[in-house]
């Protein structure tokens, strides 16, 4: 039997809507029509219990489906149910027009009556879920993911870039944290992710769906294998690339020009008395990210504390930790705000010229080294990887999030997540990626 239940909702809905008229108009559509107050309360639910049998199709006209839907779906014995939110979609929006509102209610209820006719019985679909995760690594976040998943008892396969070693993690991730902390973290993570099956090579093919992906891997050794995984985490790293001003700054041509990533090595090798003048330049076209800014500040602080004279030409200083900026100032770094205009390689040193906008004055500095702030770009393999996995990229070539506000670690494809700087920002924590596989 097809039954209609109209809720009066504390005697308000029948005030705004002409229930008598609706009852009359619906008479031929439904086999039975009941009007009751507060269907969502215990007495209403009991009434539904007594009136509805498993074979019935039911339309409920009430407040909103979310108030009424949840308690009722637990109590209604039948499978074919349609909710019509009369209060939300009719009464509240057509408060001053009882006639029009009632007509709209009739139309919606009539549609719902047709809808229940066409409903299929619920079927339970069984899907196999492979409790195994592939982590495409290279970033410290990949190690963290592996370690966390292993703790959860999830099998992990860690696909690392070619010719990769623990040292690579230290070198490639040095921008993320202070080097001693980073070394400790990597040591711990390598240890705790030991049980992961590690493969050096790349992924060549993907098919299937979230929960059951078929992947083809090609090892560096040339060996090929095929595997089933439930979920994939992309933890490829970001890469430092020379900024657009690199050419003007004679990067690659002069020994005096370095990238910021090379500065720590230079300082480490420096003898105590052999102090230098170092000019660090940030490309003006580039808005520093907090990760880049923090790395820059940490590095120049170290350089300055070693006794070097460090000048930083910058625009906006970005960091999550204001105290890093304070430390750099305290260490005596000289901050000038402006963009490098001209560079000349002379016998006395590199002559760097810029307008310091904070005094509207052009200044020239003759220095021993010119150090360029790098830009973090997606690692070279990202584009190809996205192609194999079928993922969308953002305008900077990083892998795109599905919904950047609420789904920050999900890619455009279900069951594929990312961790770390595959996606421009880096969180020191790993994400609840493979919930679905765990349950």
């Amino acid at each position, binding site marked *: 039997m097809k039954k209609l239940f109209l809720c009066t909702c504390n005697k308000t809905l029948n005030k705004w809507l002409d229930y008598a008229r609706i009852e009359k108009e619906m008479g031929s559509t439904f086999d039975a029509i009941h009007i009751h107050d507060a269907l969502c309360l215990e007495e209403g639910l009991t009434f539904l219990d007594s009136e509805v049998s498993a074979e019935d199709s039911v339309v409920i006209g009430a407040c909103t489906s979310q108030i009424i839907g949840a308690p009722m779906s637990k109590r209604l014995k039948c499978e074919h149910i349609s909710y019509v939110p009369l209060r939300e979609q009719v009464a509240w929006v057509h408060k001053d027009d009882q006639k029009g509102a009632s007509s709209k209610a009739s139309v919606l209820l009539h549609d719902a009556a047709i809808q229940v006719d066409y409903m299929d019985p619920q079927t339970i679909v069984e899907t196999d879920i492979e409790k195994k995760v592939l982590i495409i690594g290279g970033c410290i976040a990949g190690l963290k993911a592996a370690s966390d998943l292993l703790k959860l008892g999830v099998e992990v396969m860690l696909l690392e870039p070619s010719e990769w070693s623990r040292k690579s993690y230290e070198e490639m991730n040095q921008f993320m944290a202070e080097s001693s902390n980073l070394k400790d973290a990597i040591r711990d993570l390598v240890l705790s992710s030991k049980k992961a099956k590690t493969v050096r090579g790349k992924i060549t093919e993907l098919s299937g769906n979230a929960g059951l992906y078929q992947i083809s891997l090609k090892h560096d050794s040339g060996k090929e294998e095929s595997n089933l995984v439930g979920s994939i985490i992309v933890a490829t790293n970001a890469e430092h690339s020379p900024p657009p001003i690199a050419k003007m700054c004679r990067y690659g041509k002069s020994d005096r020009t370095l990238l910021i990533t090379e500065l720590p090595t230079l300082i480490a090798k420096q003898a105590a008395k052999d102090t230098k003048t170092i000019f660090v330049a940030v490309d003006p076209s580039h808005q520093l990210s907090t990760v880049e800014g923090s790395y820059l500040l940490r590095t120049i602080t170290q350089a300055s504390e070693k006794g070097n004279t460090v000048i930083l030409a910058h625009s906006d200083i970005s960091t999550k930790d204001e105290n890093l900026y304070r430390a750099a100032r305290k260490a005596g770094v000289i901050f*000038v*705000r402006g963009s490098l205009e001209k560079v000349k390689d002379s016998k006395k040193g590199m002559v760097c010229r810029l307008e310091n906008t904070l005094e509207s*004055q052009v200044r020239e500095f003759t220095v021993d080294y010119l150090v360029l702030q790098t830009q973090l770009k997606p690692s070279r393999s990202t584009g190809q990887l996205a192609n194999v996995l079928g993922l969308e990229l953002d305008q900077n070539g990083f892998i795109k999030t599905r919904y950047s506000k609420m789904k920050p670690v999900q890619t455009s494809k279900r069951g594929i997540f990312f961790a770390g700087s595959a996606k421009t920002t880096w969180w020191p924590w790993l994400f609840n990626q493979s919930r679905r596989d765990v349950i």
Partner: protein
Amino acid sequence: MVKQETMLDLEFRSWLLEQPEGETLLRCYQCGRCTSACPVAEIEPSFNPRLFLQKILIGDKSIAENQLVWNCLTCEQCEVRCPEHVKIPHILILAKVRGLMAGNVPLAALDRARTIISEGRSLSVSSPMLKTRTKMGLPDLGTPSMDQIVAMLADIGIVGKLENVKSVYGDAEDE
């Protein structure tokens, strides 16, 4: 008009940082709140405490050679408002001290400095002034302890040098 200057001579900056409270200069992140708070800057647009700090920070000692720094009233409005607690008036005093030796000092200020060495006070007290004070019922000024004052000034290297300083502004300077 933008003019070109070359650096880097950090001698002045280093000297200033070594002075008591001098290193608070390093806390400056050039927000400019001092300049917008400064009552002198409101009247005289070329007086810009933030700019002074910027110049000293990059080793430019022109501020110690310019009469402008003497416009500071030491009202400390800038220091009160500074988010990073830079001792701005103190740093400007240090710049004045540096300039003073080279003669960047208004004659009136130089005279007062000399009066301190000779009399222990920045202004000499004349007998009519003392009479007026008595009439107004003000307390006795007492006698400054010259030994201590001179010893202190000698300690910071002022005595014996100040005598030879000549104000580059001469007598023409108006107050």
